[in-house]
């Protein structure tokens, strides 16, 4: 117990790194995923297949393989990234593939007639997207996206394997010095859970905010 408390400042540093990595990945994948997802649905045909292949391929390989590929593999092509940049790039690329799929699903779930109705009153494509499609698609997008965010936080533990001292690696370093794994792993699990449970709570608020039929 005493040990756990003394290690807290060190774990706190690790926790901040985990949050930092997760936040960056969530933000980058959200922006890229929305742009590419919309391009997949509405874009020209020559854009369809590259995006389709990207989304399917990246979702089909283990995240750890992707991280190692970027960190250890890319130098062979004379692309040398720091471990932090590699981790962010790999995690974001992976998460973007998921967000593309979520955006596609959410947008395609909106009936065709909605676009027709928007056209019929003279809205331009951008206006239809903004005022007709987006408000409806957001509701379908949010629940699976929150899951994806939770997955990102958990998946970020893998960055410890390229030497980034996140919460995971901080825990292991403490264990390395004390040889007492159990209390530290329990503490670590509680910290991950605390992050993700707060996220779930926040998401319920968010979903309620975007629900337009309140019953």
């Amino acid at each position, binding site marked *: 117990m005493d040990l756990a408390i003394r290690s807290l400042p060190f774990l706190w540093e690790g926790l901040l790194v985990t949050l930092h990595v997760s936040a960056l990945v969530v933000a980058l994948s959200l922006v890229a995923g929305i742009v590419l997802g919309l391009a997949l649905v509405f874009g020209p045909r020559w854009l369809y297949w590259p995006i389709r292949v990207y989304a399917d391929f990246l979702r089909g390989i283990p995240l750890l393989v992707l991280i190692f590929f970027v960190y250890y593999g890319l130098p062979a092509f004379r692309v040398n990234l720091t471990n932090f940049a590699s981790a962010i790039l790999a995690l974001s690329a992976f998460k973007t593939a998921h967000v593309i799929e979520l955006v596609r699903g959410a947008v395609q779930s909106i*009936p065709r*007639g*909605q676009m*027709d*109705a928007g*056209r*019929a*009153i*003279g*809205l*331009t*494509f951008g*206006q239809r997207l903004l*005022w*007709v499609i987006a*408000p*409806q698609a957001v509701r379908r997008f949010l629940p699976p996206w929150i899951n994806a965010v939770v997955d990102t936080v958990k998946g970020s533990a893998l960055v410890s394997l390229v030497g980034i001292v996140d919460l995971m690696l901080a825990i292991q370093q403490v264990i390395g010095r004390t040889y007492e794994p159990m209390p530290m792993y329990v503490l670590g699990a509680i910290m991950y859970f605390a992050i993700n449970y707060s996220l779930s709570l926040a998401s319920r608020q968010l979903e309620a905010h975007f629900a*337009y*039929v309140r019953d």
Partner: protein
Amino acid sequence: MAIRGLRKAFGPQPVLDGIDLEVRKGEVVVVIGPSGSGKTTLLRCINLLERYDEGSIRVDGVEVGFRDGAEGRRQRRSERELAHIRADIGMVFQLFNLFPHLTARENVMLGLRKVRGLPKREAARVAEQWLGRVGLTDKLDRLPAQLSGGQQQRVGIARAVAMEPKVLLLDEITSALDPELVGEVLTVVRELAGDGMTMIVVTHEMTFARDVGSRIVFMDGGRIQVEGTPREVLAETVHERLRAFLRRIELKHH
């Protein structure tokens, strides 16, 4: 409005096979015909929800689908130009297609604000006025899901006419309604016709067609087969397929 030599095909299958139709200001042209005859496609071409392959559609002298390019070649219009043209052509849909996340008032306001550029207050005022016209003054803040089919369709009509279109297209607007709700929607349309709104109406309601139609057009196989006054088309026709069609409709309603 003038349609000349309009053709459209989905793949090898012609859907519109040379349509000529003229609609004068204030006229109500009713289009009847069996399903698959191209009626709905015709309406959807008029405000460019579908592209047409050949021929021309002019509303107030303006070609809808194309602009004249260099050397007399036709160029497809840009999205922005299309939006501009569509704003003057109203459409009411069979399945209402109301925006489910917006209240009745907001459904009507959206086009007024984003397309016509009215300030919020003014848009709300116009929306309330039109929703009042269709008898929904007490439902302004309801979401579509909280309205009956007939009420939803009346919001759909208000949304279209609030834009003050030059021509209003009605695409089987009572087909998805329970029989007891059809009357309230048709009453609204009758009033609009009385006010001189130019309309093209696709419908299976023959009584309604006879009452409000200045002219009736019978389509079959992507062509206009018969065109004339309601009496000529509905009562006095000798056209065989039209008579068969009218008999089938009558059977369904009795």
